[in-house]
């Protein structure tokens, strides 16, 4: 029987395994050094905040794997010998495979800051990071978070939930403004401060200072030289593919494991998916490395088909994503750029309470609807997916916005106000 070995038990690897099992009887083994069972990385924050126990983050009950004949191996792969189709583990044991799937995800970026490896300095990616944070929490009087992205703001929320004062260093002049246009970004700046988080924009880390026991005791700010005393330093300046163990293999890597549209690497029978995979050429407006949950899942679904004999190209549909910034929910469908492309025009509406807004992006000549950002209002994926496929224009979208509303029943609806705002803008623009 053909033996499929998958390195990484995250969403990508597990989705692949589940779908291979649906389609075939192949022998499947999932290897991971992090946890025995698949858990949802996106939910790590809720464990620390006490919303859930760790076991609640596991989407499948423990008997699931045996019942579906998916073998789980706990071990760290140190090398891949593609000539002999063999993996080597940290304990020097080996395992042979017929087909290999690399789904090893990401690791937190570190930019060579002095002191970045001290005790009390951590990223927030793996379960071990969570344990480390838990260990460092008692006695912490202040935490400093370096890097204003999605994980940074989650970490800030986590620490705040335990009443730990947080200083949040963001290199950019406004939160996550590489992705969010000014209106949205500023809304989140205000919301972060509303939560009593000490947000420092345009601020870089210079170094982390140690106490006599080698634990972080303060950070120094690049711009001002200010020293901020703290016991925890969170490094959340993005992630990059977790593929160091492949450096000496024959598998071609760049920042990630290079793959073609069939998710195949340069070596026959070796594939890569999820956060660690890098497309030779970006697909559409997407990035070559897509480190999000959904794309990991989609790649897993696609690859399972290929492995089971139905060679399938990775063809993601319309882009979508979502996040939650403290109490403000965010969803996006299609493309809305923070600095509009030259063909792009945008319509922005913000509610007077300053916690809800939408931005619709459209083509300046054809008025074709290109994408939407919605904050504080939930929208239907299905409808926007349809409108994007049907290439509706912005007038249509604005006039039918109600159909897309996904807020719970009895919530205040804002479509009329949005329409009015849209019409009044047309008048002034004319």
């Amino acid at each position, binding site marked *: 029987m053909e033996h499929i070995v998958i390195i990484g038990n995250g969403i990508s690897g597990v989705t692949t395994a589940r779908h291979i099992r649906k389609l075939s009887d192949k022998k499947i083994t999932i290897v991971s050094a992090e946890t025995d069972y698949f858990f949802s990385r996106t939910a790590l924050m809720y464990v620390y905040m*006490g919303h859930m126990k760790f076991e609640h983050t596991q989407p499948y009950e423990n008997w699931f794997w045996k019942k579906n004949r998916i073998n789980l191996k706990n071990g760290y792969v140190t090398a891949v010998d593609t000539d002999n189709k063999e993996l080597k583990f940290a304990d020097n044991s080996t395992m042979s495979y017929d087909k290999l799937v690399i789904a090893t995800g990401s690791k937190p970026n570190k930019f060579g800051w002095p002191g970045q490896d001290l005790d009390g300095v951590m990223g927030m990616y793996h379960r071990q990071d969570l344990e480390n944070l838990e260990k460092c929490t008692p006695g912490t009087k202040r935490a400093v978070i370096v890097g204003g992205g999605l994980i940074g703001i989650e970490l800030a929320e986590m620490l705040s939930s335990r009443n730990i004062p947080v200083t949040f260093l963001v290199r950019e002049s406004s939160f996550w403004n590489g992705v969010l246009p000014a209106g949205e970004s500023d809304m989140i700046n205000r919301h972060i401060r509303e939560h009593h988080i000490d947000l420092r924009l345009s601020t870089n880390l210079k170094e982390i200072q140690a106490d006599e026991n080698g634990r972080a005791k303060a950070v120094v700010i690049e711009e001002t030289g200010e020293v901020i005393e703290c016991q925890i330093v969170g490094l959340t300046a993005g992630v990059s593919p977790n593929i160091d163990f492949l450096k000496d293999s024959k598998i071609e890597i760049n920042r990630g494991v290079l793959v073609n549209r069939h998710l195949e690497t340069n070596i026959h029978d070796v594939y890569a998916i999820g956060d660690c995979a890098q497309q030779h050429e970006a697909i559409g407006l997407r990035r070559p490395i897509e480190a999000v*949950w959904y794309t990991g899942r989609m790649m897993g*679904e696609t690859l399972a088909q290929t492995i089971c004999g139905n060679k399938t190209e990775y063809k993601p549909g319309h882009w979508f994503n*979502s996040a939650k910034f*403290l*109490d403000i929910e965010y969803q996006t469908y299609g493309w809305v750029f923070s600095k509009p492309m030259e063909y792009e025009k945008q319509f922005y509406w913000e509610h007077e309470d300053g916690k809800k807004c939408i931005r619709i992006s459209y083509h300046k000549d054809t008025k074709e609807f290109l994408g939407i950002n919605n904050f504080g209002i939930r929208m239907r*994926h299905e409808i926007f997916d349809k409108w994007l496929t049907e290439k509706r224009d912005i007038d249509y979208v604005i006039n039918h916005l109600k159909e897309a509303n*996904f807020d719970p029943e009895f919530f*205040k609806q804002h479509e009329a106000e949005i329409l009015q705002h849209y019409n009044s803008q047309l008048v002034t623009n004319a």
Partner: protein
Amino acid sequence: MKNNLEQSMSLANPAPANLSLMQKIGTLIGMTGLGIILLAAFNVDFPNKGLWLAISLLSITAGVIMFSYGLYGNTVEGIKNNGVWSKSISSRGLLGWLAGISLTGFYIVLYFYPEYIGLAKDGGSNTGIIALFDPLSRILSGNPASQWFVYGTLYTIAILTFGIKFIWKYRHNRYHQIRTISVMFFQTAFAFLIPEFMARLNSDTFKLPYYDLKNVWPLNHYLFEGYNVKSFINAGNIGLALLIFGILSIFVITPILTYKFGKRWYCSWVCGCGGLAETAGDSFRQLSDKSIFAWKVERWVIHSVLVFIVVATTGIVHSYLGNDTSKYWLTKDTFLIGVAVFLATLFGAIWYFKRHELKKDARYGAIGYLVIILALIALHYTSGEQNIFIWKASKVKSAYGFLIGSIFSGVVGTGFYPILGNRVWCRMGCPMAAILGMQQRLFSKFRITTNGGQCISCGNCSTYCEMGIDVRSYAQKGENIVRSSCVGCGVCSAVCPRGVLKLENGAQEGRINPNEILLGNDVNLMDLVNKK
């Protein structure tokens, strides 16, 4: 019951340093109110009972409200689940167990030893706690209090005060606000005040039975008992109208509302058990068991209760009907045949219209149906005057009242809130929920829609589903949630950090979508994935 919830709430956080001043004052005031009741339990004879009762109840109310304000008042609107699993009370810690044990103890005293809290023995006057409540009872109904009046008052205060707490907690969510106001209203008006006022109408010549209009058979399992039906009939037109309302409730009103809105219209908007679960029980919703094993147990237990109550009610009615058609048109035999024909039509119709959806469930349905029919036949041959099968009718009634009415709904259902979660009774034991659930699953516009491919499998929804539904297992596949047990509380939707879930009433088409239709992926691939 109130007693312990209040107590536990005040100690909610294992690190007392985290209690704000407001919370501490609230706790103090609330405890004072409880202290008065406790003193009464030890037979301290208060001189002016009305005044002391008022002080006590007002302090409890003020205490809970101040505590809630201290907890949520100064926070930014949003989900308030920080520390739920680290607080002893809400994570089956020591406090949780203590609360559970004292609640259970309270129920045992209430149901089986009311004399310990001062219920009058034949003809004497009340003492202790019950005496403390006499003045209020006299104002409302004109009669002295009973243990049920004490319970009803505390129950109502619990729903009202913790209802306010819940509304505070969800002040960004109008669905929760409105439905909480609804349960607060139905409890206060329909369960508490109206029956008391109805009692006022009674005189020597006219007597209505106690009737909470919103309490529908089979939840109201004594509705069709001989003494109850007799007193309805004796009360002339009003009584008859009420009885007819009771019958219409289950056979007409309930199916229509459930068709339009799902069972939530009852379970989380109207029902008293649901009302308590949603308010005072809110802190324990995460404790429900989500395993598939628990789901299996649930389905067997709740449907067995339903079969049992259908047979028992039929038996009870059968036992007081006569054999002589000339006296009354409805005789024992006509009744049994009527029930059998009704159930056969019902089952036939379900099978005919829904056989594709049901698959394996149809077999279980058939088993239940068979049991009932066999029981009816057995009833016919074995039961005579005043007995059901070979047992005395009164025995069956008290056994039912004991097992389901007291042990299940009270002692386990509410007493075990801090251990098994706030909806064990609704999930495992309530025959009304079973009936509504079947309607919801088969003939309803209600569903929880999943928002395309947005789910990140985080598990908040499943964790906070009080009915133990593994919501995530549907959401992460892009499936809608159409489950008979869902009471439509809407908390899964509220706690979802990615806006994935929406409770809706809509068209039948696309309501159940058992395919993996995760949006965002290649459309042709999704067709492949769904090919079976």
